[in-house]
């Protein structure tokens, strides 16, 4: 099980606040609309917790994007289905959205947010992580038989106030990567 001390958690929280703020700015710059975000939550999770959380978000599309390097893990983005048309219009998609266009939109939003969130996060810690291409994710089919016992999950919600657009970004770090993450954090705390 991953254990974080209170100081480590506070430091990570601070880094997350900054990097997620940068991600919201990036998104806002692209769509020329104000994007608000929740306070990022940091928690450790078992496969069962993770599965339960994903299943609770049944009214959403999901996409995932893995990252490799000093940190390994996956960014999972959920986008509420009924908010897709609004964001599509802002991003200059042709309306109404058919299934292919919806998938394209979800992958595009995922790519923007994942990259922005991860970049902000890794650059502050001077760690490298290379994002792979995003892919659609159908949770019910995949989470069976996970070969991990716990992950560190960073969870943040982006919204556009006037619209129904609501998207949630989950950055999951594998057990080994959490140790890698803690090295620069501990160094920061000691300095």
């Amino acid at each position, binding site marked *: 099980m991953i254990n974080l001390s209170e100081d480590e958690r506070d430091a990570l929280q601070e880094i997350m606040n900054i990097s997620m703020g940068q991600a919201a700015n990036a998104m806002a710059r692209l769509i020329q609309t104000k994007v608000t975000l929740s306070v990022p939550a940091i928690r450790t999770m078992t496969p069962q917790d993770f599965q339960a959380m994903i299943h609770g978000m049944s009214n959403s599309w999901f996409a995932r994007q893995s990252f490799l390097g000093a940190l390994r893990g996956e960014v999972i983005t959920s986008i509420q289905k009924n908010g897709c048309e609004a964001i599509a219009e802002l991003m*200059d998609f042709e309306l109404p959205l058919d299934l*292919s266009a919806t998938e394209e939109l979800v992958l595009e939003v995922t790519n923007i947010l994942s*990259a922005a969130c991860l*970049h902000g996060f890794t650059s502050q810690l001077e760690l490298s992580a290379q*994002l792979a*291409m995003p892919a659609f994710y159908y949770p019910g089919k995949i989470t069976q038989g996970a070969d991990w016992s716990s992950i560190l999950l960073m969870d943040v919600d982006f919204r556009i106030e006037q619209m129904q657009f609501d998207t949630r970004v989950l950055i999951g770090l594998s057990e080994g990567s959490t140790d890698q993450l803690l090295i620069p954090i501990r160094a920061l705390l000691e300095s």
Partner: protein
Amino acid sequence: MKKNELKLEHVLVQLPIAVCIIDEARTIVFANAAFSGGLTLRQEDLTGRLLDDVFPEQIRFLKRKINSVFALKNPSFSYWQQRPHVFPMSSSRPITGDESAMYQNVQFIPLLDPADEVSHLCMVISDVTAEAIYFLQQSELKAALEEEHQQLQKLHAELKQAQQQMLQSEKMASIGQLAAGVAHEINNPVGFVRSNLETMQDYTSKLINVMERQQKIIQKQAEPRFIALLNDLYERLGVAFIQSDLPELIEESLAGTERVRSIVKSLRDFATYDDEGWVGLDLSAVIRSALALLENEIKYKAKVELELPEQNALIWAKAASIRQLLFNVILNALQAMQPMGLLKIRCTLQQGSIELMIQDNGCGMDSDTLSRIFEPFFTTKMVGQGTGLGLAEVYNIVQEHDATMQVESQPGAGTSFRFCFKGFRG
């Protein structure tokens, strides 16, 4: 450094993957041979031309991607699944391939200057036609397999149903054989009981006659004391009552044996399968036989109103099947009624056909139930009380006899079955 750049450009030109580099104004600064040669548009040298002019139809989508990369310094992607043909490029297998347009995955990669700003953007187009075609073929194959699987499942269900019906028929045949055996065994003892009772009836009548004459003679000839003693004895033993009751008892017993004989006959008729052969069958006789067998079921449940034609109602039929049909429909009608209901059975001769109507005034059915009554294993009875096969069997019998059937039902008012069989001229 220059040497390295030159080498890199040389590699890019030679690469079998299409590469195109643009600046922030979307001017093409580099396009390798795979990009230029792959395009279906006839283009002179692409270098220095505006992307918007070369690809006017695609520019809306391309601008969206390009703007995102320049704004966010972050790579972007396009997949063949969502957008199969971003650039107008022909398949890399124009002769042996099935597809004329190339399926593409496109990567939009930011190229950073020394100040870490995006100065150029590199588009890398991968030809995934073979993979895409394979995937699409697999998807079609999967859909075809799923359809086949569903058909097999349906077939399996039908086979299961046929097997159940066969089991049911076999069960009925076994019951029939058992009934025939029992009927035969009962017939013999009932025969001699009846014969003995008839002889007893004769003897009793004679003995009573003799006794009456003796009494008259004694009354005239014997001593008063002897007469008084005898009268006392007769009175104590109830001889007068015995004399009047004995013929009635024998009469009732004979009627009982007659009833047993009639039931046994009906049972034998019912159990006789005639090797499932087709015969000219008198429907009226079969109805009477079925009602006789079901008398015990009927008498506490319903009054029967029977209307049969005077002439034989001949149909070309399998006797056992028609008996089964009557049994199933009549038993269902009885189960639908509260005592005392009214069961109407009417058989009428039509021009070239015989119509049979079986009507009850029981609980009836709603339209949903009515639409499902011929489905095998559909039952409204409690678990274990009905197989749900009775009316499915009736349906099959009607089909087998090339007959027609109409069912009408009203909840609370009752149900009526109307069959129309083709007449048979012997």
